[in-house]
């Protein structure tokens, strides 16, 4: 579909149904990125010998003392959940693309960023920024980031 069609679609009427897939994938990626960061914290603590039974997780608001073992388990669970949700998000995107519920542009961006999410902590950080910004924009303005196809 060309830009002229998308422009026409943007002028009114039609359907917007790609959001759920975005959020589904986005939440999964956030979980994955959080898991990756927790794994880095645990790894840092264990770098020079056996890790302490307790780990202090420093945040902007408060420092929390938690069990290192619990932190490691949480990290693994979150990372696994992130991968699973990423896989689900990618599949739903494929379905939406086939049914013309999302545009070429949106599908390309989401697929590219979704694929980056499988590339470890850095990839997770990048997609958290992408999906986070997308969510915040759509939530705060009530508009979509990408044009939705006409007549869908």
């Amino acid at each position, binding site marked *: 579909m060309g830009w002229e069609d998308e422009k026409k679609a*943007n002028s009114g009427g039609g359907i917007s*149904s790609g959001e759920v897939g975005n959020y589904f994938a986005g939440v999964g990626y956030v979980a994955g990125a959080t898991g990756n960061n927790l794994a880095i914290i645990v790894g840092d603590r264990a770098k020079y010998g056996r890790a302490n039974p307790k780990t202090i997780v420093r945040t902007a608001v408060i420092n929390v003392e938690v069990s290192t073992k619990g932190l490691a388990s949480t990290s*693994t669970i979150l990372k696994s959940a992130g991968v699973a949700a990423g896989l689900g998000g990618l599949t739903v995107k494929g379905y939406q693309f*086939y049914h*013309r519920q999302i545009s070429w542009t949106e599908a390309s961006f989401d697929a590219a960023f979704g694929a980056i999410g499988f590339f470890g902590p850095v990839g997770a950080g990048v997609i958290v920024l992408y999906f986070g910004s997308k969510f915040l924009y759509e939530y705060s303005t009530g*508009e979509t980031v990408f044009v939705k196809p006409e007549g869908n």
Partner: protein
Amino acid sequence: MLNQKEINTMKIYYYFLFRVYRFYTDKMKETKIPVFYTSAVSTAVTGFNLFTIYLILNYIEVVKMFSGKYLILIPTVILWGITHFLFVRGKAFLKYDFKKSIKGGFLVVAYIMFTAIAFIIVANLNRAKLAKGSIGNPVKNEQVQKKKPSLEGKIRNWLEETF
């Protein structure tokens, strides 16, 4: 018992799993869940292969498409279960003593690219069909709601007006 052809097909699939697994252990330095990553990537790729075949059958109207985007998650979960528990979890792909090679890596990347391109081609055929249908009957699919303005549309309009 598997015949020689089936054994060779399995070996090719195991090589694919081996390269994905080694990518996560060697390049990504993943120590906790490389197996989980391997089964997820394998499910994504083989899932899209199967989905593409289903879409072709749907396009030529041999099979009907299920309605509701979340139903697609059910076969994905089943496929992930089969992949993970039958092929990946036991790490059988490591028993073949595969070696990493440039040719093998190229073929794995080519297979992933082929999967994406095949899906896009088939999806585009259906998108064109839907676009034609929507001219005569614009509001017939699921989840009908008023069209929202978009950031992309605003940027494109601004670019057109400015340049």
